[in-house]
């Protein structure tokens, strides 16, 4: 396998992990709206369903996006594909 193919393989792997986490927080948990509402786990006292939609999932996306950027940069470096003129 060429360097490029290995790089793309790892990139795809990262994509699937990232999208799986994304799916969990954006779609998966909202199949259980009423169950979340009934849950005794109440972040900061808010009902879980309400908390996730107004803050929890949003925060998860922010963290996920920074994490993804960092991981992808590592992959690019590993295979020597990062840009030289980076600031």
């Amino acid at each position: 396998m060429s360097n490029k193919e290995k790089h793309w393989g790892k990139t795809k792997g990262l994509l699937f992990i990232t999208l799986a986490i994304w799916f969990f927080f954006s779609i998966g948990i909202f199949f259980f709206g009423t169950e979340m509402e009934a849950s005794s786990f109440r972040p900061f006292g808010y009902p879980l369903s309400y908390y996730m939609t107004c803050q929890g999932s949003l925060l998860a996306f922010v963290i996920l996006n920074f994490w993804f950027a960092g991981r992808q940069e590592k992959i690019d470096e590993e295979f020597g594909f990062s840009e030289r003129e980076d600031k």
Partner: protein
Amino acid sequence: MIKGKFIDNLPKVYGIYTGGFIGFIILMAIAEQMGMSAKAIGIAFVAFTVGIYAVIGYLSRTLQVDAYYVAGRQVPTVFNGMATAADWMSGASFVAMAGGIYFKGYGYMALLVGWTGGYILVSTLLAPYLRKFGCYTVPDFVGTRYGGNTARLSAVLVLTVASFTYVTAQINATGTIASVALDIPFEIAVYVGLASILLCSMLGGMRAVTWTQVAQYIVLIIAYLLPVFWISSKMGAGIFPHLMLADEVARIAELEGQFGFVKNSAADLATVPKGLAGITKAHSSVNGTNWGFISLAICMMAGTASLPHVMMRYFTTPSVKSARRSVAWSLLFIFILYSTAPMLATLSKLSLIDPTLSTGIIGKSIAEVQAIDWYQNWNQANLMFVSDFNGNGTVELNEFFMGGKAVVLATPEIAGLPYVISGLVAAGGMAAAMSTADGLVLAIANALSHDLYYKIIDPKAETAKRLIVARVLLVIIGFAGATIAAMGIQGILGSVIWAFDFAMSGLFFPLVLGVWWKRANGPGAVAGMLLGLAAGTWYLIHVRTGGAGFWGITQLTFGIFGSLVSLVSMVVVSLLTAAPDKATQDMVDEVRVPSGKTVLGKQH
């Protein structure tokens, strides 16, 4: 010129700017104490901020193609994040979203999830790859990747339909705010808004829009957060509302149970002014189907990844790496506002409906409410209304109506904050609507001037001529948008959601598969774009004209149907026709690694 120096000095320049703006707020607060009228404060806020944007727009004027289209590709990561956040958060986010949450509760908060989750798709699937491609516009990518003018033209068509739907809503929002703040009729205010939008973008294209958007982000985020924190502290709800409003949310649920959601008769509702609504749904409880919530979130996420005015912001960064990081920063800046909107809706609702608070109006007599100052102001602006349907003399939950915009615009006044805050909110709303309108108008005009005029009609046109065409188109599109906005066909939030569905129907799969599926070819992409757009549009018209929908898809989520048709037709047609040639396949390989030259040259 000062260019290189300017980029290095950005933190300082915007630091001074932020300080100056805060100074201006304090100055206005002092002026209010000394007797400056509310109207004068409103005018001062809007005029001062718009004036600054115009100056930035003028200073950023340019005669270079890559500066005009992609700001010379030297916008630093974090600043591009701010500019994208302003580009992204429109009049709908600023003025209408908290209102939507106020009225529809949990079900509408799917918008928050959708409008943030979409950025994961942007950063993983598209932005870095399109940046590597080196295109000026989104159709530029489609035209080069799939080859041929048909593909390019189809992309221009989808872009124009989606962005134009969106931009009328933004010009509508600037008009609403200008008419309230400057006290002029809406039909005229729309053109005042348009003039301010063009001032920012005409001379400097993307470069001017970038630097005004950063300035606009600073204004809009201060204007959104300050009142919410203030009201929260004033009501004793907590100094950090995001983490401390659980009791208030619970109290609203308790009051809802106590009042009940009484359904008004059609005859009663007919007397309520157009566009106003009452509270009919639970605030925090799950109040709709899971699929209703999820389908709306899906449409907003896929739409986010397909809207060209957002994507083109990531063409302006110096590198692929910074494009990717910049998406993360954008989302952080957006999160700051979006996580605040539900808190504003909660505070606003509680202060109006809780009879134990001095600001509460439910349970008060009709005459008493009608005598309140702020009620009279906003009733006059056609954004508030009470009526004694059951004739018992007091205001019930189902007898109080409000316009969606009033939640953001009127809450500071209701909560008894000084008028300077209302002026600040008006300036913030104006900044939000202007920044998005600028991005959209520019996206359309650039696609038409670069992809239609230069790439298809007259490939030999000189730089000067290209830039003149671009500017003329900008003005024409702006005027067309303002004219339609003045007619006021659909509310702000509704048109914005449609724009996402249009973009998703036509562009989502052709863009994503362009990077992720080498076998995708020109005929497939054209089929995907055109059939997707047609299917989505058909579904919208079908449902709007009273047809029965299917799969629980509403007029707000028609993108699901459109994009499915797009995906199927694109895959089928691609597989039935010849695979893309070697050069195209190599091009896709090249796009997938960050290093090396961009596919398209620096100036093309």
